């Protein structure tokens, strides 16, 4: 499973009718990548193209000829790419291999292979609880501010955030936020609570505070007792500092 951050993207161009040991080259490459446990690979069949031989191959004229360009791409860590590249270099007897630096923003997998069910792990340790107070009608570029803040926190991979909607209150602007009889008021006080490691507080503050116009942020020391399912190996050590 890939994680957020720097990675390499490899693109390979070959012809559909190039064969290697009796197999289509693109198929052989795909199987090789799978055997090497590359995170994922995609084979694309374009509409048209031309290459070293200078002939335009298009789907219109070549359905039967099977001489279309094929594009295989995959993204993985630099180490993985270094591992598979020498073999790919050898395999691509007619075509082109390209490597570029890329940045993974999000990589998630739903379902798929079930991890072995580990017993519940408990993470204990000191952490910080940040409470952010704002108004429900506060907006950032037309979007409710609390939503914008939660999205931002999610992108920063902050451990977790919860939004509470108050029923009554007042604050910096001295006007009263109040819930109406039918509980449909659109200007109630909002409190977002965030728990994360102490060393992330400044980073979180630096991201959230500039988004707010007026408001209050309160930080307090807490003790975390976190129960988690099947914790990925690499996170086990460093989750709470």
């Amino acid at each position, binding site marked *: 499973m890939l994680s957020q951050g720097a990675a390499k993207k490899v693109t390979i161009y070959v012809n559909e009718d190039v064969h290697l040991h009796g197999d289509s080259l693109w198929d052989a490459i795909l199987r090789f990548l799978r055997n090497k446990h590359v995170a994922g690979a995609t084979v694309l069949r374009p509409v048209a193209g031309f290459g070293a031989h200078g002939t335009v191959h298009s789907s219109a004229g070549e359905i039967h000829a099977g001489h279309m360009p094929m594009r295989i791409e995959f993204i993985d860590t630099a180490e993985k790419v270094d591992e598979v590249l020498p073999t790919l270099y050898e395999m691509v007897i007619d075509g082109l291999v390209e490597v570029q630096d890329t940045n993974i923003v999000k990589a998630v997998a739903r379902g798929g292979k079930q991890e072995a069910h580990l017993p519940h792990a408990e993470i204990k340790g000191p952490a910080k609880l940040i*409470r952010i*107070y704002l*108004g429900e*009608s*506060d*907006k*950032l*570029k*037309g979007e409710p501010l609390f939503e914008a803040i939660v999205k931002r926190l999610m992108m920063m991979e902050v451990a977790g955030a919860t939004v*509470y*909607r*108050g*029923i*009554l*209150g*007042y*604050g*910096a*602007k001295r006007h*009263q936020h109040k819930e109406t009889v039918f509980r449909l008021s659109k*200007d109630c*006080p909002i*409190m977002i609570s965030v728990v994360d490691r102490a060393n992330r507080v*400044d980073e979180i*503050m*630096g991201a959230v*505070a*500039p988004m*707010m*116009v*007026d*408001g*209050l*942020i*309160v*930080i*307090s020391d807490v003790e975390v007792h976190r129960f988690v399912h099947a914790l990925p190996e690499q996170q086990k050590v460093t989750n709470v500092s």
Partner: protein
Amino acid sequence: MYLRQPARLLRLHFSERDRYDGVPLYEAIVATCRKLGIAGVTVLRGMQGYGESAELHKHRILAHDQPITAAIVESTENIDRLLPEIEKMLDTGMIAISDVEMVRVRNGDAQPETAA
């Protein structure tokens, strides 16, 4: 970048059903805070809970009886000034005080898109 100053967080736990002087207690508390010049107060309604009387507080169609938490962040002096007043008003319930660090965000009119 943002100045963190020490402050205290006062949390009051009581029921939505509690009343003071003919008005819901949480409204009375907000009014008292205003009168004493407390910087702000936020009243949150919980989904369900129980407390002193071991009676479950939850939403019923006619009787609003959910748990209420009022949170106030202020300086130690102002909290000390407010506490005796609150104690008089709170019949049953709980008061929790914790030390916190506070950051006042005042980006002011830099962004025009603010709530009216």
